[in-house]
Every structure is written in C-alpha cells, then in structure tokens.
C-alpha cells in the first residue's frame, strides 16, 4: 500500500473518490486528467484500472458474461448457457464472471448489468426484447426458533427506534460490552470477535474513523450476503450505524461487488429510507461498487480498492482498526456480522450467547447450491449438525461425492465425513476443514476431482493480486502441473506438488494463496484412489501426500 496515495485520495474524500473516477473514465486523456486532479502519477491510475476485470481487464466491456464459478462448473450448466448466448452474441463479446451468486439454480449469466440464471437462458429472446425478467427464486428457511438473520423487518422506522432508545438508556461502553459479551464472531470467515474489534477501533486515536461493510461476497457458491443486502438491507445498515455510533465514525462504506447489481440498487433504496428517518446520531452511508476482483474480499485489499490504489493485500500490523481506510481507524466487517447486531441489542447479549456452543454463538446463514433438492438460504443455530441441514434441504438431487464448504479456500468434505460436522468454527477446524463463509456446494460424482483441482488453482491464479511470490507464481505453476497431468504430458510429481502446497500454505501473505492448498490436500487425502493415476508411478504409493494442518 502507498501511504502517499491514500493521503492524496483522502483529500478528495469519498464523494469524489479516486476509485470511482478510475472506474468511470476510460480514455487516455481522461485517465491523465484523473492523475492530475488527484496529484498522483499516470501510472497509479493505469495500475489500478488494469487490475480489475471490468475496468481494463480482459473481461472489460463485454456484452454478455458467463458465470464460471465453482457451482455452475459442478452443475455442468454452462456449456448450454454459452451456446445459448452464442446465438445472439459474437464469441468476442462474451466474457467470464466468477460467480453471480445464483448458485441455487446455476446456468448463470449477465447481460447489460442484469443477472439471469436457471431457466432464463431458455427465454433469452424475450429477455433481449425486454419482455422478460429473471425468474430467480430461492428458499429461505430458518432451521431454528427465533431466527436472527431471516426474520422479516416489517416496520423500518420502528426497527431503528431500538438504537434511538438504547442511546438514551445506556452508555457507549455498555453497548459495546453487549456486543463483546454476545460472543459474535466475524461471519466473513475469519471468525474474529466483533466486539473486541470495535473496542479497538473505538480506542484508536483518529480525527476521522470509518465503518466499512465488506459486501464483496466473492466466494463462488456463496450468496447469503446477497440475500441480506437485497432482502434485509436495513439489518446491515442498522449494524453499521450502531458500529459508527460505538466507535465514533460518521461514515459507513458498503463495498458491494459489481456482480450484484440488485444488491446495489436495493441498498441504495434502503439508504434513502434510512436518510428519511433522520436519526439522532449523524451518520452517512456511501456505496462503493466493486469492479471484478475476488481479492477485494480480503479486508486490506478492499480498503485499498476504495482508496483507488491497486487492491493489493497489505501487511498487518497495522490493522485496519488503527490504520484502515485512508490511514484512519476503521471497523470493517462482513455483511452478516452487521446483520446480527439488531437481534443482540434487542434480545440481549446473553440470549445470543446462549445459542451455539459458547465459542461460536448466534446463528449462521448457509447458502446451499443446486445440488440440494431444496437449495437456498438456511439459517441455523451455531452447532447444528450438517446432516440435519442436508436432510432439511431434501437431500441431494444427484449423486454427490463431496461438499465444498466455505468457498474455494474452504475444505472439501467427503460425504463420509458429513456426519462428523456441526455448523460452527470449532467443529470444522477440528476435522481439518473450514467453516468460512458457510457456502455449501456439492461436487457430483460425475465431476473429476483432478479437474476440480485445476479449477481451484486456476481460480487462484486468476484472482491472485500478485503481491506475494508463493501465490503469484505457485498458483500458475500448480495449474500447469495439473493440466499437464490431465493432458498426459507429464504426470504429477507428488514431492513437487507437496512442496508447492506447503510453500503456498506457509508462505502466502493472505488466505487466498494460503488457503487453496486445503481443498487440494483434502482431495489428495480423501480421494487418493481417484487422483492416483495422474501421479508418476514412482510415487503413486506415497499418495495421500499430505497431512492436514
């Protein structure tokens, strides 16, 4: 990260944001003008613009996009989508997008900024004639009493009255203490205690502070944040507002991925409604629209993105709570984390804490993809068994050999291990998996895992920010190794693959390069028979090559 660029971008503030200017301007002259206006070099503007898929990346300016996310890949729907699109668009006008969050019905694609999925491809003519809209629908099921995240918000004004009232009854410290005592942990995947984070931000010294909502739900297979942003945006805004009040921030930024156009529209609408309420603590919201870069889901890369810098992962410390957005103290949390705040304040920390296993408290949203008979959003109490969820979802719609849980960097759970898992951070960790953001997608029997391995390396190579050596180089080399094995050019060398995975796991700067070895090692461990033929004979006996850390 550059302190200079952050400070220079801060001069113009969020309303004339460097990133948004870069996002919108395309010509050479326009970019030079931006550099001049922000007192940064031309290279800074060009460097940022060229990072993003949809600004100057190879997928920029396409007329249609085909989803190539893990779920659509496993569902096998995309060849049909592509051939449908090819009847209307030239090959060169069709780009790729890594997950539109339509994993519950797959066959996802985007045209003119609108997302489609499921049967939509069959009525492409009508869609292009603007006679049809997407017929998307999914189940929203609370598998728990007294749902926290899926309960309806009927009266918006009344919903916010809770905090208006509490402000008059309790001190900031008391309210902060409630968040701490609730045991709420970050729902983005890392599981850091939210109250502790907010306390650190509240204690940090800064003339300005920020609340940032990480709504860059990039994990292919995940759409629970999209659900909250579109159907319960006030739960998110409420949480950010409370965070702002507690840490002393006046601005909340929602960084929403470009692939979720409806989320952006619906949040904008909710912000307008919020503004009508004219609450006592002056706080404003700003939506920053992503531009196609998975790494922006990493918190420091996300902050750099908002600043207009290349969204590269920053070293920590300093942590965002002390030096975050524009170098100022920043509380950055996931959508679902913010969405839990209202319930905690309404029902008390103890009530929240009582749900779950004491270490993982409250409830968790799960996004179930189309491999389930009843895909959709499921809310469960922490510590609910995975098999109960599968049962509630009606089981699988086709033969499945594994579940990929927690995004591309989450563990690959063989069906044999399903009964060993409960939905909480601890259980997954103990079994060598990762709860992550708790998306669950099924890997059908028909999906060769060697190809899924290539897909995982390919995804990492495509989305690596390129900063740390192990991820930048390792993901590409891994992809090549697997591809060579599939093409029977060169069989896998288990020692070299083990070295590569260990190098990425131990050496990478962030969870992308550091995380992708997990599902690959899961494959090697649990599906050694299936992948053995792709290894050199001399070391086939040494598969599985790995122990899980």
């Amino acid at each position: 990260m550059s302190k200079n660029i952050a400070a220079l971008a801060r001069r113009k503030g969020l309303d004339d944001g460097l990133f948004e200017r870069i996002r919108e301007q395309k010509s050479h002259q326009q970019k030079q003008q931006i550099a001049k206006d922000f007192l940064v070099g031309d290279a800074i503007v060009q460097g940022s613009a060229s990072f993003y898929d949809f600004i100057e990346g190879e997928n920029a300016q396409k007329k249609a996009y085909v989803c190539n996310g893990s779920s659509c890949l496993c569902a096998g729907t995309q060849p049909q989508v592509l051939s449908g699109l090819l009847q209307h668009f030239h090959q060169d006008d069709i780009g790729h997008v890594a997950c539109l969050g339509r994993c519950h019905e797959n066959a996802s694609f985007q045209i003119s900024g609108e997302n489609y999925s499921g049967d939509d491809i069959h009525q492409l003519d009508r869609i292009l004639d603007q006679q049809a809209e997407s017929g998307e629908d999914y189940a929203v099921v609370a598998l728990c009493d007294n749902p926290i995240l899926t309960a309806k918000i009927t009266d918006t004004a009344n919903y916010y009255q809770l905090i208006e009232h509490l402000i008059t009854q309790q001190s900031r410290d008391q309210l902060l203490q409630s968040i701490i005592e609730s045991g709420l942990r970050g729902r983005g995947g890392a599981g850091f205690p939210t109250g502790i984070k907010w306390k650190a931000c509240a204690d940090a010294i800064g003339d300005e502070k920020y609340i940032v909502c990480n709504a860059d739900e990039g994990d292919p297979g995940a759409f629970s944040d999209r659900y909250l942003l579109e159907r319960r945006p006030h739960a998110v805004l409420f949480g950010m507002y409370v965070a702002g009040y507690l840490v002393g921030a006046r601005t909340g930024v929602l960084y929403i991925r470009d692939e979720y156009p409806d989320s952006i529209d619906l949040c904008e609408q909710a912000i307008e409604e919020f503004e009508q309420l004219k609450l006592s603590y002056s706080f404003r919201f700003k939506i920053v629209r992503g531009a196609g870069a998975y790494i922006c889901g990493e918190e420091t890369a996300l902050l750099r993105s908002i600043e207009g810098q290349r969204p590269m992962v920053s070293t920590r410390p300093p942590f965002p709570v002390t030096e975050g957005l524009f170098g100022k103290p920043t509380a950055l949390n996931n959508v679902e984390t913010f969405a839990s705040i209202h319930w905690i304040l309404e029902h008390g920390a103890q009530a929240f804490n009582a749900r779950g296993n004491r270490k993982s408290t409250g409830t968790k949203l799960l996004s179930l993809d189309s491999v389930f008979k009843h895909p959709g959003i499921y809310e469960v109490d922490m510590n609910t068994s995975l098999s109960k969820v599968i049962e509630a979802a009606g089981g699988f719609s086709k033969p499945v050999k594994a579940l990929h849980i927690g995004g591309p960097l989450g563990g690959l759970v063989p069906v044999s291990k399903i009964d060993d898992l409960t939905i909480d951070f601890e259980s997954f960790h103990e079994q060598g998996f990762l709860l992550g953001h708790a998306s669950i997608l099924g890997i059908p029997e028909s999906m060769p895992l060697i190809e899924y391995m290539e897909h995982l390396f390919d995804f990492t190579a495509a989305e690596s920010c390129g900063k740390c050596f192990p991820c930048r180089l390792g993901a590409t080399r891994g992809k090549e190794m697997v591809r060579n094995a599939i093409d029977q050019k060169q069989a896998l060398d288990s020692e070299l693959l083990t070295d590569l995975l260990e190098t990425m796991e131990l050496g990478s700067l962030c969870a992308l390069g550091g995380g992708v070895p997990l599902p690959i090692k899961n494959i090697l461990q649990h599906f050694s028979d299936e992948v053995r033929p792709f290894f050199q004979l001399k070391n086939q006996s040494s598969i599985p090559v790995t122990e899980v850390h």
Partner: protein
Amino acid sequence: MARSEDQKSSQQVAFIDGQPYAIEAGETILQFARRLNKHIPTLCDDPRMEAYGSCRVCSVDVALTVDGPRKVVASCHTPIAEGMHIETENSRIQKLRRNIVELVLTDHPLDCLTCEVSGNCELQDVAAEVGIRQVRYAEGENHLHYPKDTSHPYMRSDLSKCINCYRCVRACDEIQGELVLSVAGRGFDSRIIKGMDTSFDDSPCVSCGACAQTCPTAAISDKFFSKSVEATDKVRTVCSYCGVGCNLEVSVKNNEILSIRAPNDAEVNAGHTCLKGRYAWRFYNHSDRLTQPLIRKNNQLIEATWDEAYDFIADKLISIKKQYGADAIAGISSARCTNEENYLMQKLMRVAIGTNNIDSCARVCHSPTAYGMQQSFGTGAATNSIKDIKITDFIMVIGANPTAAHPVTGAKIKQRLMKGCPSIVIDPVKTEVAKYATYHLQLRPGTNVAVLNMMAYYIIEADLVDQNFINSRTEGWQDYESAIRALDMDELSNICGVDKHLVREAAIAYAKAPTAMSFHGLGVTEHSQGSRTVMSIADLAMMTGNIGRPGVGVNPLRGQNNVQGAADMGCQPHQGAGYLPIDDPKNQAYYQKKYGVELPTNIGYKIPQMYQAAQEGKLKALWIMGEDVAQSDPNHHYVVDSLQKLEFLVVQEIFFSETAKLADVVLPGASFLEKSGTFTNGERRIQAVRAAVSPIGNTKVDGQIVIDVMNRLGVTQPDYDPAGLLEEISQVVPFFAGVKWAELGDNGKQWPVLEDGSDTDILHTETFKRGLGKFHYFDWEESNEIKSNSTSFPFILTTSRNLEHYNAGTMTRRTGNKDIVNEDILLIHPDDAHRKQINNHATVRIFSARGEVKLKAEISDKVKPGILYTTFHFPDDMVNAVTSSEADRETLCPEYKVVSVDLEQVA
C-alpha cells in the same frame, strides 16, 4: 514484586535460535535480527522503505513460548514480542525459502554469467544461499520475452529479469515521491509500468535512479551499468551540484569513472540522489575540458606551460599592485570548490595581494541570507538540520523550488506534503511543492515583505504569538509589533495579489503548529528587499517561538554545493574566515596573529562593485576561480563590458566558459571528482570530498594552482593537502575548532564543531549567537525595476532553475541531461498568450530595457497573468541579457527575480 516486574519490563527479551536478546519497542523480527547481526535472507526488503512482505523469503519459525505451537511468519512485517522464540534456519524454513526461490527461477532467465549484475545480484546471492540445485517445474508460462527499454538517456529496464518485488515502485513512491512507476494487471501477469504504460523516455520519470538503485536484479538499471561489479575501486565523496550535499559512491577502474551510486548509509541522502548527482558526471572527461593553461597573445588564447602561466600571472599582479595598489586587484572565489580552496583564495587576496576584494557567488544567491540571519540571530546559516523535516508539524517554503533545485531535500519535503503535513508555499509559480501544499500564496514577484508582514499581522491579531519566547529571547518586539499593527491588510493584499483571507488562514495555521520549519531559496534573496525578506522570515519564526528546538527554524536551501563553505571561509569583502568583520581592530589583530602579516582594513568590493570599479578604471585585475559570471550574472552585456575593461583577467575553469573566453590567462582546474577536500552543505555539515580519479590531462587541483601562485608571490604555503589545510583553518575559523580531516568519517560534522570534536545539529537552543534575537520591521517597497520600467515593459519575468540543469549548465549541458532538456522555456499564462497572440511552443522575443532574448513559449497555468517564468541554463538563450542591475539594498545580491519585460511572438 513490583520491583522485579519493573526489571522484567525494562529488559524484555526474545530468543533467536535459543539465545535471549533484549528487544526494542516497535521493531520487527527482521530489524531485531539485523541489529544482532543475525542474517535473514530477503528479496523485497529495503530497510529504507516500509516493510512490504511480498517475497516471503525472510520467513522465520516463531513460537510465543519455548514449547508453544510454531508458526511461520514473514520477519519483515511481524513485530517482535516479549518471549518470542525465533528459529531463523530450521529445516522447514530452509525448505520454504528454497521452494520460493525455485518458483522465482521458473520465471527468470538463467543467464547469470552474462548478466550485467552478476556478482552483485540479490537473487543470485539468495539462490546460492538457500541452495537451489535445480528448477523442478516443467517449462510453463513466463515473461522472458519482455523487451528491454533503452529509450531513455539514462534509465534502462529489462523486465524479463523482474521478480515483482515492487521495490522500484515503492522507491518511486516512498523515496522520490514521483509515482511514475506502478504495476499493470494482476497476479502472474503483473508487470511494472512507467507512466501510462509507456517507455522510460516517454514517461514523466525524473531519472533520480532510486528504482535502479533498489532493484535487486538487473530489471531496472541504467546506462552506466551502475550495479556491475566491474569497478575495482569505490570512492565515497560528496556531490558538487546543489547544497544538499549528497554522498556519492564512485565506481572507478583504471583511473576512469564507470558509474555513480549513492551510499545507503549516508545521513544526508540515504542512498538517494537526483539525476545530476547520479548520472550527470560525464562532463569530467568531456572533450571540451580545458587541459592546458592558455595565455592571451595577440588577442588569441594560446596554450602555455604552467610555469609560463604562473610567471605571467605573478608578473602582472605584482606590476599592477605596484602601479595601482593592491585594491586594483580582486578575486572571485568559487562555491563549487572545496573549503580548503576557498580558504586559500581569500588568503591569496588578503595575505599575498593585500586586499579585501574577495567575494564569491554567494553574492548572487544567498548573501542576503547570511546578512539577514546575522542581523536577526547572529549566525548566517541554517538553524536546523534536514532530518527535522521528518518530525516537524508544519513546513513553510518561501521562494524555493526544492524538487528541482534541491531534489533530495525537495523529495523529503514533498513526502511530508503528500501525506498531508500542513504547509505553506509562498511562490509566484505553482511549483511542485505548491501543488501539494495546504496553502499556496501565489504572490506577485517582489512582494515577499508584504506577504510576510500580512502573516505577522494576522498572527498578532489572533494573539498567537509566543510571548514567553519573545520576552526571554528577543529584543525589538514592541517597535516591530506596533509597526505591524498599523498596516492596512487590504492595501497589502492588493499589492501582493493574494487574498487576505487566505493569508490569514495560512498565518494562523503556521502560528498554531507546535513546531514549524521554514525553508527559503533564491526567491527570497534575489530581490531588492532580499535581506529584509530574510529578516521578516526570522521575525515570524521568533514571534512563534520556532527557533532552537527540533523541527523548527529558518533554513535557507543553499544553492551550490559549497556556498555555505565559501562564506564560512571568508570569501566576502567585509568578513574574514569565520565571519569576523575585517574593519574591527580586534579582528584585524586576530587575523594578523594567525597569518603573520598586516592585513588590509578597508572593506573590499562586492562582485557588482567590482564591475562598477572596472567600468571606472579603478579595478585593473580580476581572478575568477570556477564561476561563469558572464553567463550567470545579471545584465550580461554590462558584465561582459566590465570584464573587457580590465587590464588583466585570470579565469580558473574546467571548461571554456563565456567568462573564460574573455580571459588573459585561463588556468585548467580540476572537477570535484579529481580532488579531495571538504564541502559544507546547507545544514552546516562539513563532509569529506575524496578524489575518485587523478586530475585529467595537464590540469591541476584548483587549490594547488592558488598555492603555486601564492608561493610565487612570496607567501609560503605547503602543497595542497586537505588534512594540513583543515588544521590551519581550524586554528583560524572558531566554529571549525574541532574539525580534523581524519575524524570527519563518512557523514561529516555539523558546525560549530567544538574542540573536543562534538558537533551541532540545532543552533540557538539556549541563546542566540548575537545574544537576543532581534526583530526588524520593514515597509514593503516596490522594486525600482517596476517603478522605472513597468510602463514600457508590463510583464514581470522571474527566473529559476530546472531539475535537469545546474546554473550556467557548464557541467550538465555536457552530459546526457542535455538529451532530456536542451533549452530554456518561457512559461506564459493562457490569458496572456491569448492576448499577445502567442501560440504554444512558438518562439517569442522577450525584451527589457537592457536587451532581448528569444525563447520557446509554453502556455501554462503555473504562472499567473502578467508573470513570465524561465530558466537560465543555456548560453545560446542568454536569459541574463534582459535581467537588470537592480540589487538587494544591503548586500547587492542581484534582483534576478523581478525583471520588467515585454514580449511578442516571432513570425
């Protein structure tokens, strides 16, 4: 209990490979290990920059307790913690490092043997250290096909060798502050770009070379292969361009210079320097170098031997002295030369000739600073050190363009400004620092005193003065305050053309800052009210208590490498070595005792008075050492005419300059690369200059030339030797008392240097040199130039320097810098261009009451309407043909900055 806990907290330790060591607050594991001389390999770390964490080669194995769970972390960005157990070399770590470097080598050419940096390549070193035997990966995608970029006169890139460590990008950002480099794309295809993804030559690169210096491989380098190990010798010396005093490391082989780099451990420049210091050194053996003495015979300069030249000079000087008296002879010393040489030059004049007619180019630049600060504080030098830029709360830059004229200091200032350090820039031109400043007071040239008085008014009005400081440390406040209070802000605002509310806001911000540092340059001094402006700056510093502490002070940005030293050594007509006034009998006795002869007691000629005396026939002989007055002094035609009226002109030079062309004897001197001695930079730092090569051809070290003539004139002086001369100087110049050649070390010492060798980074901490600091009030006065000429010549031309060239350009024009900038350009506001029907890049004729020049015009909003701006580096353009003989009232420093002109486009 409490006691043992205290002991524990005061002696926190961490363990490296089992051994306990005390830790220091705020350090990373890598810094901790380095402090203990424990080597940890790394590729992306440069200790001068923020930890970045990209290569991961510095990974170590860490446990929080001896048997606790172990974790691999990158040592460069992981803070050390009490009780940590660090293993730097276990098998897991060794394997990780080896595997990372193996990955790097999958996308790196394996042609070490023919590579420019072989033997000095960090990747090569680390690969050898971690023990790479082979690259096991099959050949895959790579970037070995990236083409080389050889577009630029100096900079080179070969990105096939890039390892994406981002050190160049960070150096361009964190060290130079230029943001010319970035990276395009992402992931595996990330690629270093220049500007809008163009070549070095087409990018706005300022060629500082910071990227080349930090690049661990040959991915970014320069034309001179500065990272090659071909050189057999490395000589550490000091740059001879501006007064920043950058340390240089000169690579030499067979008495020839191959390249120059900047030592990373230099206090002044920490591995940084500008394109002048790093790349503009090829003048030293340029074919234009004078290599033989020349004597004018039959109006032609003919090659002669040194003995012939010396005899001719001695005879002429003796006969002129005999016929007209010693005061018919004068000398101009050189701020480009060493302290020792300047000392000798003034000694030649005062002791061997017997006149105080000795001056130096400080006259035309910072004489008002020396004079003004002596009046206010008692010492005419920077009160603080450049390192204070890092800690100050407020920066004020007045009449200076430091990113061009003092690039390394300018970069340090810019770094603070970019990060939002509150700041004021007072300058008629929108300079680089002005773009980043909080307040830019873009005044009309010649109105500095008006703006500074306005600032004083608003500080007093807002009751933000430091009354304690004023009461205890200063005198003259009441008179000053009442004069300021009587001023009419609207009137002054009209005069200087700056909105009074903006001035008020800026003044209040300055006064409220806990510490505020001011810097000024020739935009302050080269005015008819130059000395008065300096004193007005001192007034602001004193009234806000910004003197005598870290991060405050009045800090002139000295223009030439040794202009501070030339004045320190006594190259001025009213003060001898060490600034003792020569008209005081006490000092006369002092010098007499030191030199063993009776010295002249009347104050000698300042440079402009020398021209005047030549015109009047009073001055017959002039000896100029290393200064091209014919090009650099104002009112060119008058200067040339004056020099021609002399009976005898000696010019000691390295090139056949405009001045040398007029000489009767030309003596070929040596450049800084060929001599040893000391330079004193703008923060009073006396640093050792060491000869990298011997003087070329038949040239001599300038100090030796002066000594040879002194000896012929009957004054015995041993051969030139910095150690011996410094010893003599330390006995004459009080603030050099403890300066010894052998003790200067790599980073020199800041004067005053006490007898015990201790030096001084901040002046006036307890008392001022003059006792109390003195307030001086001055009315703003319009320059005579405007009063006399603005009706006929309604534009104001102001001149300055650019980054690429240095003063008269004698040196820089004979280097690759000429391929970057090869002419002086006139900046004109769009409104004026429209009104005068001048097209962008058209040739315009600029004319004043003195003369005219033709320049290429560039339409620019860097100047306000009515103001024109140019540089004065090129003799073909001879900008000083139009400048005037107006000068600072107190010191006769020429008023370069306010010239009444008019202009028209040449058909």
